[in-house]
Each structure stands twice: as structure tokens, then as C-alpha cells.
């Protein structure tokens, strides 16, 4: 069973055929039926159904609006690193246990202004550092398709909320693949916008030059509608782009005849799982059949993405997480004097992966190592970005690749940190280059979902959605086979 798609919810709510309360009740019932709670799939870090009902009650007043809100009456799950005013924002960490933000993120405000209902905060890897949602202080989230397996991470809770049919849309966040990879593992759509497309004001920072709020959808259309509402310039975010937001749903009606699809050979290495390769080949065949031109291209610096990412992201994170010191909010543990308080609070509040990354990040920025690590990584990052620019400048409209090197692995299967980092091997390049990317389901292997990824050039989400809509339509039920 799936949730009703948000286009239908919106039009039925606007026409008075259904109330927001009804839709909300369906979501609450579904959450109960799938065992979304702590003992089950552990999807939500926090739910306040009374609060959600209060939100739903206000929707009735908005039916007289000239233009109904784009997400009128649609319940939406929000990743727990996005600030909300009525529910806590813990980022999956002890250090923010019970912290209720006194302001809300721009993206949350936009959702509510569009008539959306915030249906709970979802579980995540602590401070978005992880690829499996096993690193939460509040327990792992389970993949609704296969509950002994991970949903991917770090936005595993949001992915699971959509994959289990509770909501049709959820917000996540991306730094190295944290929306696309869980979307692939859970068999749903996940979008990372161009860096600067969506405001980061209220998104708890992990790596500032990489972070973006991302959208999960049951379908491409759900994700497109979600992105359309949250995208656009925000004066509270100096990195947000002042560029108009096109109508992404218009891409649904466009066909892909003449679309030039590039296949970067570095994303189809000899070591790629043959079953995943087969699913990709099938998808590519569909694109060709629809009239797209498919050609091999090269992004030669791809295999440097993981080392570059794992220098830049932890470095920025080590600085962004310095504010968690027990002084103004969150956890405070006393120790010997001020320094003792800092150390007890931070060692008591941060989990092992976060600690590891803060140390790594501090190290690569420290005196004597900055040039060899951080500066070098930022230079190689330019080379990675230039790879994309060259390919897109050569007449390629979108790129197609597998989203992840594997399907969802069992909970507890990967304990080596670097092995876990390799889950991002096909996704981190887009964050480094700032280009938009999205994953759509393209099949299953042994019942486990496989994702195919589209990438486009900066601010060309419309073209990316165009290809995704077309492939989704062409695959039909194959996407779940």
C-alpha cells in the first residue's frame, strides 16, 4: 500500500472532497500498521500527532484561497536535522536531546505556507554522518522493504517514511548522497538539488559547502512538487541562488526525443555488481527506445571523490559542530571547570562516528597539514567540478549512472568506516561539483531495490526531471521487479 500522491491530495483537499484530517488519519494509521515506532522500523525520532491535527485543522480555513497551496493537506515527514518550532530537532544525537528550536527552517515555513502538514521528525545518522542510519543515538532505522537491512543514510528515516507508504513526500538532507542512496535502497525517488537551489537556513550544518535539503517522493511527480515548494532564493542564506524556480511538473509532459544522455564510464567499472549493471542496461535501453541519444563519456577524476569528500566534509563539520559546547542549548555535562564541561559534554553527547570525523576534520585543518590535505582536496574538487562542466558543455544534457554500488546491506554488516564511506562512491561527486542529481527506482534484485541516478548541469533540474519522468513512465511496474 502506498500513500496517496500529493497531486491528488492537494486537488481533493482544495475541492473539499477530503479533509486534511482524513489524510492525516490515514498516515497515522499506516504508521501504526507498518510498525513505524521504536520497537519496529524506528522511522520517527519524534511524532506529535496532536500537533499534526492542529495543523490539519487550519487547512479548512485555506480552502477559500484563490490559488490553493501547492501541498494543501499533504502530510510531510521532516528529517530531524531541519529546525522545527513545535517538535524537537535532535540530529540523531544525544547532544541535542529534547532541544526544541526557537525558530523554524525556511524550508519548513515554505512547506507550511503551501498547506503542507509536518508529520513528525525522522531518524537519521547522527549529524548526517553516515550511510546507513545505524549511527543514530536513538537506534537504527530499518528498511521497510527488508527490515533486517539498513534503509541507507543519513536520511534513512525520511526514506523509510515514504517507502512504507506513511507519507508521499519527505524532506531529507544531502552532503555526500544522503538522500539519493537511501532512495535507492528503499525503492523510492530522491532528489538532491543544485547547491544553492534550496535555502540552508535552519538545516543544521554538517559540511556547509556541500549540504542541501533534498526531497524524497513516492514518484518523480511527488518529488518535483516538493522541490518546487521549497526551492528559491532566501535572503537568510548567503549561498542561496537568486535564480527563478521553473515549473518542474511541466517536465512531466515533455518527451525525451533528442535528449543526449551521457554514461560516464567511471561509474560503470569492471567491479560493478553485474546485477546492478543489468538493471542499468535495461533502463538505458528504455531511454533509447524513447528517442534519447546515449553515449559514453568520461569524468576522469571520479575515483578521487571519496578522499576529497572525506577531507572537506569532516573539516567543515569539525568547525560546524564546535557550537555544541553546552553553553547556550542542548546537553550540558559538568566537569572540572570550563574545559571539563566542554569535554564531558562533547564526549558524552557525540557518538563514535561523529567523534571520528571531528578528529579527522580537525587534523586536516591543523597547522602543518592544511596545505597537504584541505587545500589540496579543494583543488582536486575543482578538477572534479571541471569534469562535469566539460561534459555538459559538450552537448550532453543529462548523465545516467547507478546510484549505489550495492543494494541495502544487513544492519551491522559494515563496521569498517572506510568501507562505509565507499557507499557514496557514485553520489559524492554531485555534491562536490554542486550539480543536481536524483535517484529513481529501476528494479529489484532478490527483492531489494536498485536505484538509477540522473545528473544535470547547475540549475537544470527541469531537464533532470524530464528524463526521470520519462524513464519512470517507461519502466512502469518493472521498477519494482
Amino acid at each position, binding site marked *: 500500500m502506498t500513500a496517496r500522491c500529493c497531486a491528488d491530495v492537494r486537488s481533493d483537499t482544495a475541492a473539499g472532497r477530503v479533509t486534511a484530517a482524513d489524510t492525516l488519519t490515514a498516515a497515522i494509521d499506516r504508521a501504526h500498521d507498518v510498525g513505524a515506532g521504536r520497537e519496529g522500523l524506528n522511522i520517527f525520532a519524534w511524532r506529535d500527532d496532536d500537533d499534526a491535527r492542529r495543523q490539519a485543522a487550519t487547512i479548512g480555513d485555506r480552502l477559500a484561497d484563490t490559488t490553493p497551496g501547492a501541498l494543501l493537506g499533504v502530510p510531510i515527514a521532516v528529517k530531524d536535522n531541519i529546525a522545527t518550532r513545535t517538535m524537537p530537532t535532535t540530529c540523531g544525537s544525544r547532544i541535542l536531546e529534547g532541544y526544541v528550536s526557537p525558530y523554524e527552517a525556511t524550508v519548513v515555513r515554505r512547506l507550511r505556507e503551501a498547506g503542507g502538514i509536518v508529520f513528525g521528525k525522522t531518524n537519521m545518522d547522527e549529524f548526517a554522518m553516515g550511510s546507513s542510519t545505524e549511527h543514530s543515538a536513538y537506534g537504527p532505522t530499518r528498511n521497510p522493504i527488508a527490515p533486517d537491512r539498513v534503509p541507507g543514510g543519513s536520511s534513512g528515516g525520511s526514506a523509510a517514511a515514504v517507502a512504507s507508504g506513511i507519507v508521499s513526500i519527505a524532506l531529507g538532507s544531502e552532503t555526500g548522497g544522503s538522500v539519493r542512496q537511501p532512495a535507492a535502497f528503499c525503492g523510492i525517488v530522491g532528489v538532491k538539488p543544485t547547491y544553492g537551489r534550496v535555502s540552508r*537556513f535552519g538545516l543544521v550544518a554538517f559540511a556547509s559547502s556541500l549540504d542541501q535539503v533534498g526531497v524524497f517522493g513516492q514518484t518523480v511527480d511527488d518529488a518535483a512538487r516538493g522541490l518546487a515548494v521549497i526551492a528559491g532564493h532566501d535572503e537568510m542564506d*548567503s*549561498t542561496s541562488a537568486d535564480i527563478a524556480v521553473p515549473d518542474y511538473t511541466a517536465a512531466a509532459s515533455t518527451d525525451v526525443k533528442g535528449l543526449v544522455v551521457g554514461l560516464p564510464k567511471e561509474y560503470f567499472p569492471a567491479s560493478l555488481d553485474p546485477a546492478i549493471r543489468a538493471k542499468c542496461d535495461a533502463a538505458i535501453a528504455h531511454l533509447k527506445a524513447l528517442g534519447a541519444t546515449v553515449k559514453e563519456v568520461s569524468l576522469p577524476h571520479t575515483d578521487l571523490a571519496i578522499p576529497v569528500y572525506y577531507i572537506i566534509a569532516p573539516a567543515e563539520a569539525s568547525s560546524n559542530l564546535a557550537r555544541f*559546547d553546552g553553553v547556550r542549548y542542548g546537553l550540558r555535562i559538568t566537569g572540572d571547570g570550563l574545559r571539563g564541561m566542554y569535554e564531558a559534554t562533547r564526549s558524552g553527547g557525540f557518538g563514535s562516528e561523529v567523534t571520528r570525523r571531528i578528529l579527522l576534520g580537525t587534523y586536516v*585543518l591543523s597547522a602543518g597539514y*592544511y596545505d597537504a590535505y584541505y587545500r589540496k582536496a579543494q583543488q582536486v574538487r575543482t578538477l572534479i567540478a571541471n569534469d562535469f562542466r566539460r561534459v555538459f558543455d559538450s552537448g550532453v544534457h543529462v548523465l545516467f549512472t547507478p546510484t549505489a554500488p550495492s543494494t541495502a546491506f544487513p544492519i551491522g554488516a559494515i563496521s569498517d568506516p572506510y568501507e562505509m564511506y565507499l557507499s557514496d562512491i557514485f553520489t559524492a561527486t554531485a555534491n562536490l561539483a554542486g550539480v543536481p542529481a536524483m535517484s529513481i527506482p529501476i528494479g529489484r534484485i532478490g527483492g531489494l531495490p536498485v536505484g538509477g541516478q540522473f545528473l544535470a548541469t547547475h540549475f537544470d533540474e527541469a531537464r533532470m526531471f524530464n528524463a526521470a519522468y520519462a524513464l519512470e513512465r517507461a519502466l512502469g511496474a518493472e521498477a519494482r521487479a
Partner: protein
Amino acid sequence: MTTADSKTAGESWEMVVGLEVHVQLKTRTKIFCSCSAEYGAAPNANTCPVCLALPGALPVLNAHAVALATRAVLALNCEVQPVSVFARKNYFYPDLPKGYQISQFDKPLALRGWIEIGTRADHSPIRIGVTRVHMEEDAGKSIHDRFPGVTAVDLNRSGVPLIEIVSEPDIRSAEEAGAYLRVLKQILEYVDVSDLNMEEGSLRVDANVSARRRGDTKLGTKTEVKNVNSFSGVERALEVEFARHVAVLEAGGAIEQQTMLWDGSTVRPARSKEGSHDYRYFPEPDLPPLILDLQWIEKERHDLPELPAARRKRFASEYKLGEYDVEVLTSNPRLADYYESVARAHGEPKAAANWVMGEVMATLKTSDEDITRFRVRPADLAALLGLVRDGVVSHTAAKQIFARMVATGDQPAQIAEREGLVKVDDDSQLSTWLDEVIAEHPSEAERFRSGEKKLQGVLIGAVMKKSKGRADPRKLTQLLTARLTS
């Protein structure tokens, strides 16, 4: 000011000083958020998600801070960098909410400036280089003795815009350091970018000092002196710390590079060790590079107000004022503005200078008032000076009128009429008063008549008093001389 050789520690050692001056820019709101930057609010009243460093908050740069900073660096003859980059300076302190300060590191707003602080014995100018000026945010305040056992933190000041002005180590004595600070402060007052109030913390000074043998070109190991809260304090602290350096070096020891704290009379080491100051600077990812339009920079340069040196020169040539008068009248730009308005309205610069330096400044000093709020408008003072020049009131009466103007803000001519202070030079009235005074002071009159000319003052003074200052002194003197000449 001519340079003085360092008198302490013999002639064999030379003091080398560089100064870092932090100046708060007088914007209405903070540098990265819209909270008020005003001094004196209730603790933590001026805070928001950004300056509290709440999770998810982001900085947005204040345009006026950029404008004021640019004005300041242009006034210091710096090369404005069209592209500058904000950077994070990472360290932990309770009044540094983000755990990093947003500053500028290897790409600051301005480089390679200078100011002239005086002349040497051979009349060559003493020029002190400004290595760089960068923009940054201020931290909050930590108050250690308000409550027992805890430190109280107020983040109102967190995020107020600062510029940091770093001088070259060109300063060679405590006096030069004082001169540098006074000249710097005056220039910044002239371009009106800051309140420059050391008590309120809108101007702060850290000094770097080292010693070397005269003739050496290599710099000695330096120490940093902090916590000085006056310019004279800087001078004293430098002398003390330099003497300490010399004593150590003469005894064959080595100077340890460390931070020293001034307590008003001595320096003592701060307890931190070197090596823990690894700020791990990296470019601020939340702020793209600041790109300044070259035309805009040129317009700011063009629109700079007249700077002190230029103003002094012009006052000397245009108003034919001597060095002392020029110094006093240009010491403060608003005073200079006031003077010019008076001088231009009145037409006699020297008379205007006397009055402004005399009555006006004395009044301001007594009432501890600012010239910008002074009740006597320049046009009105000029009118008063006109009355004096035209002989309508005496100089003494003018002083009384001035006092009334200060008290009431009324026009001088009105006051003169109303209080009967218009000068009397009518012979019969003067003679009447003179006769009365002679009658009241028979012995003095007699002695004056017999030749004790110095008693003239007493007699004239008595008439002035009787006439409430209205008597025309010249006429009066003539009449007195005529009356009491044997």
C-alpha cells in the same frame, strides 16, 4: 612631534613595536544579522538565532559595515582588495558562540597602507606602515566577577562589526606608539566610522614589542601585551615590557614568545602556552568571496571627507591661523566644522578662532557636552561676533550674552536688547557713570590724577560694573583721561 630616542635601557637597545587596533564600526545592526549593535542593552537582549549560533543559523553580511570599513581603509592610504575572503578562526571560548570567529585571513579587505605620525629632527616625516586591515565580528562579553563561582556571558556584543588594523613593526618608541594611536584615532574620527570609545570597548589596542641591539636588522622575539585600556597605558606598558626584554637579553637569556597582560603598572604572562593557538583558518563556506566594484571603491575614495592633515593645511593657508590654533581647532572634526561655519559667517577667522577656542571650548568642557549638541548655533555665534565688531556690544557684554545664548539658545541681538547690554557710548551717560565712580572712589581717583596710571583699570572696571558691561571701554578711557588729567 619629533622622535625621542628611547631613554630607557641605554642607547644600545632599540624598541620595535607593532600595534593591532580593533575598531567597532558604528552600524545600527550587527555584521551578520539584524540585531541591534547598540551598546548598553540588557544582557542578551540583542540576540537572534545567528548571533546565538543556534543550529542551522547562517550569516548575512551588513552592507553598511562594508562601506564604513572601506572608508576607513581608504583614509589609511591602503590598497583596497577588490576580492576579499571571509575565513573561520576556530577556538573555544564561552563568549564565542559558534566556536569560531568569522574574520578574514589570507585575503583581507586592505593591504599596504600608512599614516604619518610626526616629523623627525631633520623634518622628514615619520611614516608608520599599515600591513593590513580586515573585517571581522566581535565576540560577546565574559564577566568573571558578577556572580560567585561562575562566569556570566552576555552575547549582545557578539556579531558587532570590527575592523582590525595591523601596523608594520615600524614604531620605535613608546612615544611613537602613542602618537600613532592618536593620529589613527583622529583619522577614524574624521571619517566617522566608529565611536572610538576605549571605555565602552569600541577601540581596543594590543601591542607587540621586541628589543634588538641598535644597528641590528633582524627582529627580536616579540611578546604581545593585552588588556591595556588607554593610550597612555599603552605607552607605559611598552616601556615596562621593553625594559623587561632588555634585562633578560642583557643577562644572556632568551625572550619567550608569549602573551603578557597589563594590570595598570606591571606586565605578567597570561597562562596559556604557545602551540595551543592553532586557529585552523579556512575560507568561510557560508559566505562567498566579497567582490567590490572598482567604480564603487573610487566613488568611496572621492567621497571621503577631508582628512586631518589636509584640513590642518587648509586652515593654516585659508584662515591664516598659527600652528597652535590649527591643532586645537582641528583636533576634532565636528569642532572644526563648527569653527568653519562661524569663521565663514563672520568673515574674520582669527576672531572666530579666539571665541571658539575660548568661550565655546570652555563651556563644552564644563558641561561635558558634545559640540554636535551645542546650543549655540554657528550662525548665532557669528552674529554675536558681528555685534562686537560693529561696536554694538562690548567684549565684556558679549561674554554675558554668550552665556545667555548657552542657557536659552536665543539670538544675540535679542538678548542684548532684552537685557540692556547694548553698548553705551553716549558721552553724557558715560560721564554720569564716571562721575559716580569718581565720587565713590575718591582716593583712587586722586592717585590716578597724580600719576598712578595703573589705577585706570580699577576705575574703568568700576564703571563697567556699574554699567553692567555696557560701557564702551575706549570712549570711557578717553573720558577718564580727559577728566582726571591734571
